[in-house]
Each structure stands twice: as C-alpha cells, then as structure tokens.
C-alpha cells in the first residue's frame, strides 16, 4: 500500500474509532450526567474532526478550511480537552472549573489565531498535514502549551488512577484500562515528535494506535470482569466465635 493511500486511510480509521468512542462516552454521560464524561466526549469529537480533516487532505487534497479545522481541533485542542475531562474526574470541583476557565479563554484565543493565520501549503514537508503551512507568528507556539497540559492531565491522571487501584488491589480491570488509556494518550504525542524529526506516517500511525488503545482501555475499565472468588486466608491469632 502506498504512503499516499495510507495518509488517507490511517486517519480515516482513527476518525471512525474516535467517533464510535465519542458516541459511547456521550451516551454514558447522558445517563450518568458526570462532567468528566462530557469533556471526554467533546475531546473525542475533536479527535474525530482532526482525523477526518487529515483523511480529507490525504484522499481529496488541500483546502484552507480543512487545514484550519485540523490544526485547531487536531493539533491544539484535542489533548487539552480530553485532559480537562480527567481534571473533572480527579480534581476538586473549584480547581477544575478554574482550570476550565483558563482552557476556555485559551481555546477562544486559539480559534481566533488559527482562523486569521496566513497559510502556505507549499511549506509542508512530506504528504501529511503539518503546522509548517502556517506563516503567521504566534500560532504554532500555542500547541506545546495545550498539549503539555493535556499530556500531564490525561496521561498523568490515567497513570495515577491505575496506581490507586493497583495499590489497593481492587478493580484490576481499571488498572489495565487506565494503563491502556495512558499509553494510548502518549502515542499521538510521540507520533508528532517523530513526524517533526522527519519520520513519514509517524503522526497518523500514532493517532490510530492512540485511538484504538484508549478505546480498548475505556471498554476494559468500564466493563469489569466477572468477580473472582476472594481467597480465604487463615488468621493465626484470630479469636473463634
């Protein structure tokens, strides 16, 4: 299969996985009304939009709108909004809303910057979408801040949750699920880093692996395995009744 075709098919597959994942998470939110599920659902729709725009570029071709939507949702907002979901899950509500306020202001600023940026598609390297097409200043510098916040909250939060369940040796499906979510969330970050270093398809492959691992992790964490019988242990000095 040619690299050009993979440039369309890989992100399309990521987009489909993210869409199904988002629908399942939002369906869960509609019955449980927990904010973290809402933010994860929104973040996953951003993931889906990012993948769909990459697929459009790979299969159809360049369009400024496609690029702007990809850069806004796929490169800037997705990790941070997913991470904000984890913040609502793990952090005290007042702090979570404060961080969301900062994220919301930053996101509005990002919308303005991305949609007013000057673009030159001839500057992109290889066959993938990349931020090199942006010629205006102050746009690409936004991505590390959003992504660092998303990385710390989403990956750190999943690893922390896995550790808590592990320490108590309870709900081992959540240990496994959170580890898969953490690894999955790291995958696009490494894909992006390797893409910058010149490795073709690294970003799209990282996004696909990330979407699949996070989806499996979520399913694993939310569907406990059949309960195992606890193993009785004789306590030597216990009193008899």
């Amino acid at each position: 299969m040619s690299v050009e075709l993979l440039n369309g098919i890989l992100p399309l597959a990521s987009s489909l996985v993210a869409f199904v994942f988002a629908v399942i998470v939002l369906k869960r939110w509609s019955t449980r009304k927990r904010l973290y599920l809402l933010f994860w659902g929104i973040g996953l729709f951003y993931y889906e939009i990012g993948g769909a725009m990459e697929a459009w570029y790979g299969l159809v071709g360049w369009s400024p709108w496609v690029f702007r939507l990809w850069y806004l949702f796929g490169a800037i907002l997705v990790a941070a909004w997913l991470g904000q979901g984890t913040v609502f899950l793990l952090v005290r509500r007042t702090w979570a809303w404060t961080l969301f306020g900062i994220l919301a202001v930053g996101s509005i600023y990002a919308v303005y910057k991305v949609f007013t940026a000057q673009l030159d598609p001839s500057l992109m390297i290889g066959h993938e979408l990349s931020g090199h097409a942006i010629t205006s200043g102050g746009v690409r510098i936004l991505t590390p801040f959003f992504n660092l916040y998303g990385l710390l909250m989403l990956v750190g939060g999943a690893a922390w949750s896995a550790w808590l369940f592990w320490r108590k040796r309870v709900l081992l499906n959540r240990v496994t699920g959170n580890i898969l979510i953490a690894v999955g969330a790291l995958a696009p970050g490494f894909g992006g880093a390797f893409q910058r270093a010149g490795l073709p398809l690294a970003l799209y492959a990282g996004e696909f692996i990330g979407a699949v691992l996070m989806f499996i992790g979520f399913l694993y964490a939310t569907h406990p395995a059949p309960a195992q019988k606890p193993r009785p242990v004789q306590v030597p000095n216990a009193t008899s009744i």
Partner: protein
Amino acid sequence: MANQRTERKAPASYERVVPIALGVILLLIVFLGLITFAVLFGFWPQ
C-alpha cells in the same frame, strides 16, 4: 469457626507487569515533556 479475612492479591502476571508498565509510562511522560520543551526552545524541529 475461625475468623477469616480476604487476602488482596492480584494474579502473578499483574504483580510483575503493572509496576513495570507504570514506570515506563512515567518515563515516557518525562521524555515527551522534555521533547515539548525542546520544541519550545528550538532544540527539536517544530
């Protein structure tokens, strides 16, 4: 009847794999964080 308590013990494979996996994730977070800063300060291509 003697008192019994439930022993909380994960399967043997979990006991080995989970701490390693969590350690690797921690290292990857640090590594990706360093790359992000390297991008910010121009040591890694943007």
